[in-house]
């Protein structure tokens, strides 16, 4: 158990704002930039903005999730950390599970915070903001799980960074459909489905990611 806490502490120190892999701030700024640019592009038509703003927030969140991918697994694989964890009997699955948690903590809550100023920029009302926030709470764990899995899959590849962005988009489509879909239906069933997809992704990620790291190491 203490080994898990040590791993989590190291991951958080690396991923949190101000951490060495200082990834967190960048996706958040990117997310805000999308929210800021959108009204410039479509014009200041308040009803249009209010109707489409929630969906734009979702697209921004999804694209922002691509940015930190190359820093999630590859550096540790290159520097031999996974070798030494394996020698100490700490399996890849455990390392990846801890990493998903650390990645979500450094990505999900900050994104939900950033959705507040973004909602002002996009001119969306309180009820829509509530649905967006709820959807992000249900969807970002799934996004984090996809992100870490893809990072593990592409860690050994040379063009990994570019490829991982392309891989993330189709895998994240179900989250987007139900998460952003909840905005138009207004019901809570969309949020519940988003959460269900997130749970499935969270359950798969450690095993898929662990197998990918092992394959990269043995290759």
């Amino acid at each position: 158990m203490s080994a898990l806490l040590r791993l989590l502490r190291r991951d958080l120190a690396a991923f949190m704002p101000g951490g060495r892999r200082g990834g967190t701030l960048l996706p958040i700024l990117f997310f805000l930039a999308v929210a800021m640019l959108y009204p410039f592009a479509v014009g200041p038509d308040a009803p249009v903005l209010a109707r489409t703003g929630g969906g734009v927030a979702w697209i921004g969140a999804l694209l922002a999730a691509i940015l930190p991918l190359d820093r999630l697994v590859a550096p540790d694989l290159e520097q031999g950390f996974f070798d030494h964890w394996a020698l100490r009997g700490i399996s890849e699955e455990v390392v990846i599970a801890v990493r998903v948690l650390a990645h979500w903590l450094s990505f999900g809550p900050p994104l939900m915070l950033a959705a507040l100023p973004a909602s002002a920029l996009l001119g969306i009302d309180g009820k829509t903001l509530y649905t967006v926030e709820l959807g992000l709470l249900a969807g970002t764990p799934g996004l984090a799980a996809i992100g870490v899995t893809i990072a593990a899959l592409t860690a050994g590849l040379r063009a990994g960074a570019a490829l991982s962005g392309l891989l993330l988009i189709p895998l994240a489509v179900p989250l987007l459909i139900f998460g952003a879909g909840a905005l138009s239906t207004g019901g809570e069933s969309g949020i519940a489905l988003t959460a269900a997809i997130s749970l499935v992704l969270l359950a798969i990620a450690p095993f898929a990611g662990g197998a990918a790291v092992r394959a990269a190491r043995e290759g």
Partner: protein
Amino acid sequence: MQAAHLSASNIACRRGDRLLFSGLGFTLGPGEALQVAGANGIGKSSLLRILAGLARPYVGAVERKGTVGLVDERLALDEHLPLGKALAFWSALDGEDEAQRAAALGLSELLDVPVRYLSTGQRKRAALARLLGQKATIWLLDEPLNGLDTAAATLLTRLTAEHCASGGIAVVASHQTFALAGMQQLPLRDFVA
């Protein structure tokens, strides 16, 4: 320390399309040391990774009894952290105080220096400090003499001798001479496919 054992039987290793070596086998018991010798690219590092269980042999099997410690060119220490903190991450996992071990390797003055500023030899000594703290029964050393000055090389030889004397196993892959008495030799070129 449980009775250490490391044996390989009929091992072959393939990298890409190329068969590096085949039919390789040996058995090591407590207190025994082996030097794997051979030119660059012949497969010394690959053999060590197979022995460690980090890679699968193409053919053959490896039997291990005891914990494995590995020192290779990849440091696995956070480059931006001071050496003391980077080692502390591993000592917390190993339950040993590696800063103390670092003193034995002449690193105590470097504990505040970020890992990325260390020289080749200092990095090697940092990896050895972690190995000492790990208390592994089987030592796998990949080119351990690279970058070490004569004093450090002598120290490493002495530490390896002490490790073997206390019932451990050491496998050293190096193209240089490793001056350890009673060490078995395994010239890899005899097994090149």
